[in-house]
C-alpha cells in the first residue's frame, strides 16, 4: 500500500464515534449567519439590505474579484442584521443575519436541471464560480480558481482527496459511502473542465468500504482509478497526497499545478456535481459533530450559516465540555463561544471534555519533530531561530513553507507549541520583509 515517504504520525483516529451515523438533514434553523468572508481571497460584497426578503439559493453577497466567491442564502427569510463581526479566524467582516421564514422556498433560478456533457468548459466553470464553491476540506480556496491553471502549466492528473486524515472527522467518509455517484459525477465534471485524462481517488485504509464503493462506481471509466493508501497523518495534505500517489514533490513555494496536478476534496466534487447538474449553489455541507462531549455524534447535512450552538444542542452537548473545535483536532480552531456559524469550510465540530493539560518545557533536541515532519523541515531549529528573533533565517529554514499540519507539535515530548511559533513567525516575516523593502 502506498503512503508518503518521510515523516507522519498516527494520532488516535476516533472515527468510530461517528462513522456509522448516516448523513442526516437537520431541521431549518431559526436564524442563519453569513460572514462575507468564509473563503480564502477577497471577501464577498453584501448586496442585500436589512429588511430584504430573500429566497433559498439567492445571492446575498457577490464575488469581489477573481479570487472570491458569492454567498447564497441557504433558506428563505428576511435579512435582519448586517454588521461587522469577528470570524473564527479573527478577521472582522460584514455578517449578514437572516431570520428564516420557515418556507424554505427556492429562488426561481435554482430549479433547472442540466445535462453537463453538452456544456463547454468555460460554461461549467462559470456555473461552479456562480455557485460559490470553495475547497471543502477546510482551506476554503475558491474552486474555480483552482480549475483555471495558467496555460503554461499543463495538468495531467486530477486527484480526488478522500483521505480525511484528521482524527474524528467522518463526513467525507459518509459522502463517499452515501453520495458515491454524485461524487464520481462531480469528479468527471472536474476532469472535463481541466481537460485531464487521468484521475486518481485516494482513500485511506481505515475506510476500506468507502474505497470499495468509489472503486466500484468508477470501474467503467478508463481514466479514473481508486487507490487505497496506508493510514498516516497528514496524508490528506495536498503535497503529501500527490507524493504518495504519483511520487511527485511540489517544490517549496509552488502549487500542485506546478507539477501538473490538481487536488480536489470529495465534498467539493459533490458540490460541483450539485451545482452543475441541479443548479444548486453551495448552501449546505456535510459536517461531523462529534467528540466525547457530544452524546449523539453524527454526520449532518447543515445549511451554511447555521449557528454551531444549534448543532450542539441537537446532538446533545455536555455542559462540562472544555474545548470546542471547528475542524479536526490537528488543524482545527478552538473557539471561545458556540455562536459562530457553520461556514463553507467547516468540516467538523468537536466538543472535547478530556484535553491534555500540557506544560510546555524546554526543547531537549530529541529530533522527534524533525523525524516526523512530512516536509523534512527542521522544526526544532526553526523554533530556535524564531525564539531568538532571527527573522533573516526564516526563509533558509523553510519556516514560510510549513503547512502547519501540527505533526511536529503532536510528537513533541516537551509539548512545545511549535506550529504556533511558526504561524506567528510567518506574520513577523511579512512585516520584516516589508520593512526591508521600504529601506531600499
Amino acid at each position, binding site marked *: 500500500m502506498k503512503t508518503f515517504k518521510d515523516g507522519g504520525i498516527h494520532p488516535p483516529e476516533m472515527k468510530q464515534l461517528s462513522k456509522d451515523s448516516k448523513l442526516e438533514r437537520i431541521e431549518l434553523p431559526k436564524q442563519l449567519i453569513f460572514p462575507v468572508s468564509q473563503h480564502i481571497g477577497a471577501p464577498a460584497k453584501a448586496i442585500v439590505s436589512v429588511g430584504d426578503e430573500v429566497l433559498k439559493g439567492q445571492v446575498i453577497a457577490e464575488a469581489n474579484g477573481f479570487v472570491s466567491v458569492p454567498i447564497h442564502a441557504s433558506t428563505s427569510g428576511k435579512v435582519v442584521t448586517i454588521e461587522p463581526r469577528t470570524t473564527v479566524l479573527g478577521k472582522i467582516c460584514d455578517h449578514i443575519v437572516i431570520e428564516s421564514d420557515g418556507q424554505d422556498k427556492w429562488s426561481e433560478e435554482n430549479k433547472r436541471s442540466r445535462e453537463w456533457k453538452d456544456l463547454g468548459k468555460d460554461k461549467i466553470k462559470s456555473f461552479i464560480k456562480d455557485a460559490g464553491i470553495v475547497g471543502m476540506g477546510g482551506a476554503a480556496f475558491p474552486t474555480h480558481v483552482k480549475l483555471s491553471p495558467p496555460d503554461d502549466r499543463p495538468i495531467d492528473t486530477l486527484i480526488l482527496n478522500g483521505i480525511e486524515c484528521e482524527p474524528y472527522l467522518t463526513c467525507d467518509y459518509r459522502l463517499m459511502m452515501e453520495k458515491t455517484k454524485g461524487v464520481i459525477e462531480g469528479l468527471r465534471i472536474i476532469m472535463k473542465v481541466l481537460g485531464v485524462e487521468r484521475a486518481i481517488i485516494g482513500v485511506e485504509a481505515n475506510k476500506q468500504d468507502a474505497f470499495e464503493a468509489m472503486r466500484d462506481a468508477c470501474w467503467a471509466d478508463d481514466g479514473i482509478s481508486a487507490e487505497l493508501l496506508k493510514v498516516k497523518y497528514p496524508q490528506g495534505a495536498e503535497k503529501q497526497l500527490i507524493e504518495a500517489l504519483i511520487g511527485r514533490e511540489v*517544490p517549496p513555494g509552488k502549487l500542485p499545478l506546478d507539477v501538473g496536478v490538481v487536488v480536489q476534496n470529495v465534498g467539493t466534487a459533490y458540490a460541483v456535481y450539485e451545482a452543475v447538474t441541479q443548479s444548486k449553489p453551495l448552501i449546505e455541507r456535510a459536517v461531523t459533530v462529534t467528540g466525547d462531549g457530544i452524546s449523539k455524534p453524527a454526520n449532518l447535512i447543515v445549511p451554511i450559516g447555521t*449557528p454551531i450552538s444549534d448543532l450542539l444542542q441537537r446532538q446533545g452537548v455536555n455542559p462540562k465540555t472544555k474545548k470546542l473545535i471547528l475542524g479536526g483536532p*490537528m488543524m*482545527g480552531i478552538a473557539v471561545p463561544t458556540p455562536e459562530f456559524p457553520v461556514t463553507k469550510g467547516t468540516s467538523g465540530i468537536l466538543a472535547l471534555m478530556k484535553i491534555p493539560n500540557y506544560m510546555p*518545557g*524546554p526543547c531537549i533536541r*530529541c529530533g522527534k519533530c524533525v523525524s516526523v515532519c512530512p*516536509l*523534512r*523541515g527542521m522544526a526544532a531549529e526553526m523554533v530556535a531561530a524564531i525564539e531568538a528573533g532571527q527573522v533573516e533565517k526564516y526563509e533558509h529554514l523553510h519556516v514560510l513553507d510549513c503547512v502547519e499540519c501540527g505533526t511536529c507539535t503532536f510528537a513533541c515530548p516537551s509539548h512545545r507549541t511549535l506550529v504556533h511559533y511558526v504561524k506567528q513567525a510567518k506574520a513577523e516575516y511579512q512585516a520584516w520583509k516589508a520593512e526591508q523593502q521600504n529601506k531600499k
Partner: protein
Amino acid sequence: MADALFENKLIVGPSPHVGTCDSVSRIMWSVVIALVPAFFVAALNFGLYAVAVALVSIITAVIVEAAVQKFRGVPITVSDGSAVVTGLLLAFTLPPDVPLYIPVIGSAFAIGIAKHAFGGLGCNIWNPALAGRAFLLAAYSSNIVMTKWPILGTPFTGNVAIDAVTKATPLAVLKTAPLAFFKSYSLMELFLGRIAGSMGEMSALVLIIGGLFLIFKGYINWRLPLGFILTVAVLTVLLPVRDSHGEFIVLWRHLDTVGFNQIIGISLAQVLSGGLMLGAFFMATDMVTSPLSGRGQLIFGIGCGVLTAIIRLYGGYPEGVCYSILIMNTAVWLIDKHTVPRFFGARK
C-alpha cells in the same frame, strides 16, 4: 442562550489539540529503567558499596539541580528524572570503590556547571555525566582514585580486593599486546561482565538489552549506537596495532599468521570492553547533546567510533569513549548544519 451551553469558559489554544502521551519525564525515567539491569550487575559484582556510590551520585545530582533551579528562579523540575539519569550515568563511569566524596563532586560539577551554567535542560553542549567524569579524571588522576580498577570479588559478597590490582585491564592489554589478549581474558567474561572496570560498564549483555529497550521505545535512534560500535569494530582491524614484538601491524594484512578467528575476537573484545556499550547506547545518544537528524546521528556515531579507536590504540588513556563523545558533542552544531535534510520538493 448559547453561553448557557457550557458551565465553564471554553479553553482556547493553538492547534493541534491532541498530542503524544510521551513526555520528557517519561523518556528520562525510561532511561533509568533501561539502566536498572546494569545497576543490578554492578551491585552483584561490587556489593552494597557500589549501590552507595550510585545513590550518593544520584542524590547529589537531584539536590544540586533543585538548588541551582531555586537560585536561578526557574521552576524546579527534578521530578522529570533528567538529574537522576545524570547522577546514575556518572556513577556508572566511576570505579566502584571510589571514596564517596568523588561522586558528590562529580555530580555537582555535572549538574551545576556542565548543565546549568549553560542554561539547564536542553541547553548544555556536553553530556553532563561525561563532563563530570572528565572533570574528576583531570582532578583526581594523580592519586589514582579515578584510574584504579579493583578486581572482582565473588558475586554477592562484594568482596572487592582494593589493593590487589594484579592484572592489566582488558583495554590496556588490547592496546599494548592485543595478540596476547585471549591468554588473560575470554569474550564471555566481557559479555557477561566478570571483568574489572567501572561500575556500569561491566556487562555488555545487560547494556545491550537496555539499549534495545530504548530503541524499541523510539527514544534513541539505532543509527547512532550502531555507527559508533561498528566503527570501533572495523577500525580495530584496519588500524595498526602492536604485535607481540611491539611492532605496529595491520591485523587484516596478517590474516594468515594471526588467524581469522583471532582478528574477529580482538575486534569483538574492543567492542565489549570498557565503556563502549554504556557510551554508545546511553551517553552518545543523549538527545540534548547529539544531532537532530538521523543522518546527523549516524555521522555523530561514526565520529565517536573513530575517536574512540584512535584514543584506545594510540592515546595516553586506555579508554577513549568519554573524550570521544565529549569532542563529538562539541561538533554537533557543525554536523547539524551540514545534515539538514533536503526539504520536500527542494532541488537536490
